[in-house]
């Protein structure tokens, strides 16, 4: 054990030594897609005018949606907390400017699915007043700093949107803190510009993270196609109080992928199913680092982000600092978007980004790039051809998978083989689909297969749970039964003991009397009040008939013929009407316990409900009795249905429910009759 540990530390030392010597490694595969960054890589960061409304989705990150802490109509200030994080993996939502909350509703989100999510709508007052700021310093308590980062709603700004505080709260011993400025995707230049212009802020963020994580080495990795950024960061790093290595790495997609970047810089591979912290590495994006510096040192939570807007269809491309929640449509208009009949709006890069479905979706924290591409610029893939097993995909796969084998298995839905071939280690970088000569949408096949497998696993988990619960229930029922038996046995014993004391005859007589009483009571309770009630209903109906002009006469009439389906429909209509009326009039009714419906007084809605429910149950019982008696559909159902004509909505509801129950019973009866007939 000890020797293992020492050999491990030795190995670590050599890795650190190699890193110090400027050594770099390679990851498997990789591609060189056309970079297309030229258009925006020299354009300084600029701002846009504050939009009329900001749409702040509560699901801007991976994990649980945030929970709103404001209500519609509230006035908020810039930087104020709007929604707090819910659980460990979640992130807060902050007001990007001052204004009023005009709505909290379902709204389109900047998400691949195009599904609407809960969104806070903020109408800015254009004053942009900050809430009071309480800046911390580098020497503040760690817990306090972490809390601040959490409350500032900072998520990974590189694209995935993983809450930043979670990574920084790790307990693992960290050897390498890697700051990701690789930005390997084509088109995107937001991090590039951030590094060029705000290197000091990024370094300040790094200092805070270094304070929290105590890493042995800190490396800023930048692809070598961004010479200005490299120079700027080297300059900024020199000013820092701590040692920061700025490393230019070869331009090769997907070098900016977390796992690939770790391999390039440290030769380590993140074991499958683990996180970088498990091998002593933490990776943060440069923009995240900048946001952390703002949050901690200035107490300015994340209110805006830098978005690259580019593509052939915008005349004024650029790197814009945009308030979170700005609609992408507005952003595009600002960049002089020239819509064509057909185009793609890509959020993120062209390799891993997604095509937007609603143009009114807002900018969220992880929106780093908007590409308005004409159909010639990023054409649709030609129809899929047969795989010729050329193996090009395997040569470029950064995860060293066998993409074409996976594709066959995915088409065959062979989940076992997919797992054998480590489908879940695929990072969906799209390199395989990029090089495929048969233009097979490989990544799409993997996504679907992954979804299917996840679904199957989830189903399996639920099935196991259900099985457990079912078995538990059976055990419980069995136990209850045993206990009941036990109890009755005991009671019998007690009785027997008592009987043997008293004279036998008395006991028998007493028992008989008890039974008789019970019977009588039962009859009474089921029969008598019902008759009363029915009579009352008829009376009521008659009384109200004249007064009511808009009564659902036809429905009632229709329930005359024995068609249960129609009766059901009628009942449903009546119920809906009654509900509406109830809402309008708020008639409170009550019912004395003798269940006479005529004695309704306006006392309190709860009582009315109880009454209604009792009536319902009663009605059902009656029906059962009736059916037991005459085994078919009878006039009484008509009588009951007649009560639908009443105005009193409460009563109507009761009636409706009764009708419904009756109809159900009748239907069943009819069906069973039919069945019998057929036999």
């Amino acid at each position, binding site marked *: 054990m000890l020797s293992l540990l020492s050999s491990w530390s030795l190995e670590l030392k050599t890795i650190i030594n190699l890193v110090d010597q400027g050594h770099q490694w390679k990851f498997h595969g990789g591609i060189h897609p056309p970079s297309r960054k030229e258009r925006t890589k020299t354009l300084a960061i600029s701002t846009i005018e504050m939009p009329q409304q900001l749409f702040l989705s509560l699901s801007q990150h991976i994990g649980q949606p945030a929970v709103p802490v404001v209500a519609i109509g509230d006035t908020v200030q810039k930087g104020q907390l709007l929604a707090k994080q819910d659980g460990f993996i979640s992130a807060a939502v902050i007001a990007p400017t001052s204004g009023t909350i005009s709505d909290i509703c379902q709204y389109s989100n900047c998400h691949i699915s195009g599904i609407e999510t809960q969104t806070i709508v903020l109408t800015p007052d254009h004053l942009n007043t900050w809430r009071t700021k309480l800046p911390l310093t580098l020497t503040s308590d760690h817990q306090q700093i972490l809390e601040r980062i959490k409350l500032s709603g900072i998520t990974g700004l590189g694209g995935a949107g993983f809450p930043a505080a979670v990574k920084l709260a790790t307990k693992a011993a960290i050897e390498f803190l890697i700051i990701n400025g690789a930005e390997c995707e084509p088109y995107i230049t937001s991090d590039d510009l951030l590094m060029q212009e705000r290197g000091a802020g990024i370094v300040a963020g790094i200092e805070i993270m270094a304070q929290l994580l105590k890493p042995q080495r800190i490396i800023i990795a930048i692809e070598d196609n961004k010479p200005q950024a490299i120079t700027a960061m080297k300059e900024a790093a020199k000013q820092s109080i701590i040692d920061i290595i700025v490393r230019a790495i070869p331009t090769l997609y997907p070098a900016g992928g977390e796992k690939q970047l770790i391999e390039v810089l440290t030769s380590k591979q993140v074991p499958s199913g683990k996180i970088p912290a498990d091998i002593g590495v933490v990776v943060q994006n440069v923009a995240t680092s900048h946001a952390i510096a703002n949050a901690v040192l200035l107490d300015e939570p994340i209110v805006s982000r830098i978005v690259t807007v580019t593509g052939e269809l915008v005349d004024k491309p650029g790197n814009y600092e945009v308030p979170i929640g700005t609609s992408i449509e507005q952003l595009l208009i600002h960049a002089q978007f020239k819509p064509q009949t057909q185009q793609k709006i890509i959020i993120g890069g062209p390799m891993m980004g997604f095509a937007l479905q609603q143009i009114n979706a807002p900018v969220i924290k992880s929106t780093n790039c908007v590409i308005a591409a004409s159909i010639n610029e990023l054409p649709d893939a030609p129809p899929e051809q047969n795989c010729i097993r050329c193996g090009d995909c395997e040569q470029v796969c950064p995860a060293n998978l066998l993409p074409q084998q996976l594709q066959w*298995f995915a088409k065959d839905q062979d989940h076992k083989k997919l797992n054998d071939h480590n489908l879940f280690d695929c990072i969906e970088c799209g390199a395989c689909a990029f090089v495929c000569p048969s233009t097979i949408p490989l990544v799409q096949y993997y996504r679907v297969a992954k979804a299917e497998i996840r679904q199957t696993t989830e189903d399996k988990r639920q099935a196991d749970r259900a099985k457990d619960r079912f078995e538990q229930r059976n055990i419980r029922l069995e136990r209850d039964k045993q206990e009941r038996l036990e109890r009755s046995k005991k009671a019998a014993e007690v009785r027997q003991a008592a009987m043997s004391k008293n004279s036998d005859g008395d006991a028998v007589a007493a028992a008989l009397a008890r039974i008789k009483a019970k019977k009588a009571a039962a009859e009474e309770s089921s029969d008598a009040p019902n008759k009363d009630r029915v009579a009352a209903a008829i009376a009521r109906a008659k009384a109200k008939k004249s007064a009511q002009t808009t009564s659902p006469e036809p429905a009632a009439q229709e329930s005359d013929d024995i068609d249960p389906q129609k009766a059901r429909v009628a009942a449903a209509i009546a119920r809906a009407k009654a509900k509406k009326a109830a809402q309008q009039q708020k008639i409170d009714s009550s019912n004395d316990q003798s269940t006479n419906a005529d004695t309704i007084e306006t006392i309190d809605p709860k009582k009315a409900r109880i009454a209604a429910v009792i009536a319902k149950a009663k009605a059902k019982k009656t029906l059962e009795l009736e059916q037991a008696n005459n085994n078919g559909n009878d006039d009484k159902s008509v009588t009951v249905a007649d009560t639908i004509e009443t105005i009193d909505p409460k009563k109507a509801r009761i009636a409706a429910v009764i009708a419904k129950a009756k109809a159900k019973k009748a239907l069943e009866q009819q069906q069973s009759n039919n069945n019998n007939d057929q036999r």
Partner: protein
Amino acid sequence: MVEYVLLLIGTVLVNNFVLVKFLGLCPFMGVSNKLESAIGMSMATTFVMTVASLCSYLVNQYLLAPVGLEYLRTLSFILVIAVVVQFTEMVVRKTSPTLYRMLGIFLPLITTNCAVLGVALLNVNEHHNFIDSIVYGFGAALGFSLVLIMFSAMRERIAAADVPAPFKGASIAMITAGLMSLAFMGFTGLVK
């Protein structure tokens, strides 16, 4: 020693039981849907064939031949084979229930695998001695296994292919077997 190696190569490649002599086609077609079951089947068949050719040699040489009962050869060989198969089945069932289930009916049907009886009878016909018989039996089984395993891996691949409807399933498998046989003709003349 060299002659045994040549005999082995000859039996495995040149006179492959399945692709050249066309023996044992039933399990070849039947148990080649999945690679795992094919591997299991080949192991079971290898065991049965080797032991059966050994036992049948002994039975023939020391029991039937001395008393001139050669005309009972087929009968007693089948008895031997049946016993060995039965024994194998018990062992497989005990050691690997999944394999047992996968092989299904084809495990007891090794009995009627004509390759097994073929090995035993050819041993006699070709006047093999004791070691020859074992090598021959083992070689035949090895050839059978080799082809079966390759074939099953190919069939797994065919399963994902867009084969025209009339050729799906057994027919394309037959065609594949034919093409394999064609390729195996390349070994003709390798060992005289």
